[in-house]
């Protein structure tokens, strides 16, 4: 990759991060909260995109990593008052560790089998959360506000319910994941991941232990999803088993496909568009998931590249 291309990529990504920071001063209250939420969910999508978009492994169980982060963070704050930063760190570790262990089993399969295995494990995690309801408070869910407020009153940091804190914390988490994903995508490692997506056997004969690369992608993906889950728990102060349900495995797939799989900007764009689509639709009808189904079908039939995929193919081949 030429140095010129690298510089362009760097400038573009920093500009986007900067713009996202700047818009908080102009957004009306309602959208201010929405964008904070989108940033956290887009982080989840970024993790998903590393595995699906770049490495070509489609997962239907990513909610388990999001939930692992959310619960590791939420439960430790709830029971042990570890505080938000500690909870967040635990969430990242939980998502990454679950992915690491899961990968050792699941990556023994490929293609459609991998997909089904991820779906089964995702469901098993969801059911496990419900089964240990007494500990996880899974079916009701719980809020963290009292724990975090107590910490705040004790002078240990910031109030996470404050909109500005919320936005900037979400922005920080997003920025971290976004830059990591761009770094990976533009690096030689990204090149190998893309090669695995294209033709795994060929990549192996080029001297790469493709299992290790797929495992790396899965671990990173799980850790980023865990970070998103933990951030969600802290910033929106709610932890519930519904975030482990299959719908939350399908959302990141949809967001990534819509924005453009295998592009660094796609996850953010897809999450944003879909968030507002659902937001608007749910104002009219309780069958708002119709939008999810319709979009998936439409994307497969007419727009498989997604927004950024089309942009890259037409105007900007240098985009990572």
């Amino acid at each position: 990759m030429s140095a010129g291309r690298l510089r362009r990529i760097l400038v573009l990504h920093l500009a986007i991060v900067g713009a996202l920071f700047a818009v908080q001063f102009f957004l009306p209250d309602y959208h201010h909260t929405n964008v904070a939420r989108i940033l956290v969910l887009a982080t989840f999508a970024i993790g998903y995109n590393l595995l699906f978009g770049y490495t070509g492994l489609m997962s239907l169980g990513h909610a388990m990593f999001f939930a692992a982060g959310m619960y590791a963070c939420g439960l430790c704050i709830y029971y042990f008052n570890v505080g938000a930063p500690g909870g967040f760190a635990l969430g990242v570790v939980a998502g990454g560790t679950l992915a690491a262990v899961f990968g050792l089993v699941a990556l023994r399969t490929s293609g459609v089998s991998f997909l089904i295995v991820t779906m089964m494990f995702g469901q098993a995690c969801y059911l496990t959360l419900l089964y240990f309801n007494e500990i996880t408070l899974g079916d009701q869910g719980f809020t963290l506000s009292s724990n975090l407020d107590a910490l705040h009153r004790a002078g240990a940091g910031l109030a996470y319910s404050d909109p500005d804190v919320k936005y900037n914390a979400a922005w920080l988490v997003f920025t971290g994941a976004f830059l990591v994903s761009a770094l990976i995508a533009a690096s030689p490692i990204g090149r190998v991941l893309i090669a695995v997506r294209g033709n795994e056997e060929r990549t192996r004969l080029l001297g790469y232990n493709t299992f290790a690369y797929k495992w790396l992608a899965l671990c990173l993906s799980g850790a980023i999803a865990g970070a998103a889950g933990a951030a969600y728990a802290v910033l929106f102060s709610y932890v519930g088993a519904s975030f482990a349900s299959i719908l939350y495995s399908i959302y990141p797939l949809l967001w990534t496909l819509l924005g453009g799989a295998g592009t660094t900007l796609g996850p953010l764009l897809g999450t944003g568009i879909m968030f507002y689509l659902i937001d608007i639709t749910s104002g009219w009808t309780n069958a708002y998931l119709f939008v999810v189904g319709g979009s998936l079908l439409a994307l497969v039939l007419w727009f498989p590249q997604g927004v950024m995929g089309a942009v890259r193919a037409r105007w900007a081949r240098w985009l990572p």
Partner: protein
Amino acid sequence: MSFGPHLFLAVLEGTVTAFVLALTALGLSLVFGVMRIVNVAHGEFFMLGAVLAWYCSTLISGSPLLGFALALVVAPLLVGALALLTDWSVLKRVDYNPESTIVATIGLLYIVQQLVLTVFGPEARPVAAPVYFRVSFPWFGYSGYKLIVAGLSASLLLATWYALSRTRLGLYMRATQQDYEIAQAFGVPVRNVYATVFALGAMLAAVAGVLIVPVQQAHYLMGLDPLLLSFIVVIIGGLGSLKGTVVAAFVIGLSDGIVSVFFSPTLAKILATLLVAAVLVVRPGGLFGDNRA
């Protein structure tokens, strides 16, 4: 109730589950075996069968038996038609690409589910059993209808087996499953076989839905459990194999029945999922015996 009768009840429940599950999973298995695609909307076909059975029962309110008979005809026909429409308007257009098909059928899943939510509503609705009698055992009485469900499922499985092994369609299907290109070269109308198999798989699920609804109530979210259980069965039983599907359905159905009765249904499902993991570790070549993506 002491342990023995309790176990007997569990086995009985498990057997009924197993038969219905075998029917549902067989549909999924045939579609995967012949077409090499995974239909994630399979559970929704099951749900549609149940919901249509409810509509049939309200249509003929006097006699549950007539309503049931009507549902057994109408539900598979309508669901089969929907499957044909899906095949023609979606699957054919993405050229049966495995990943696109999965994404498309997830889309279909939500579209069907949300349509049912809009039209049928969010509540669970009971359907009266077509016949009501109790078989009395020394320790407890058992719903006679459940035994009829098992019997009907068994005869449908036999009929499917007959169709697969003795008819031209079955021959075409086996040829296509073996090698798509060679089958085509020998004049098998592969595209028509695909459409037929997809419709047939959906119809099997719909019939299973009709059979189960007097036991379970019709609800727009009822499709997820049979879908996941069918996946488990197909993984353990092997692709497109009728015998494997039935055997695996019994393993899962019985263990599900026993664990559900003695512990909890949730635990039963967690265990079934872990069983799949075990199968994978032993047979890393893939759930379906080969690594074709």
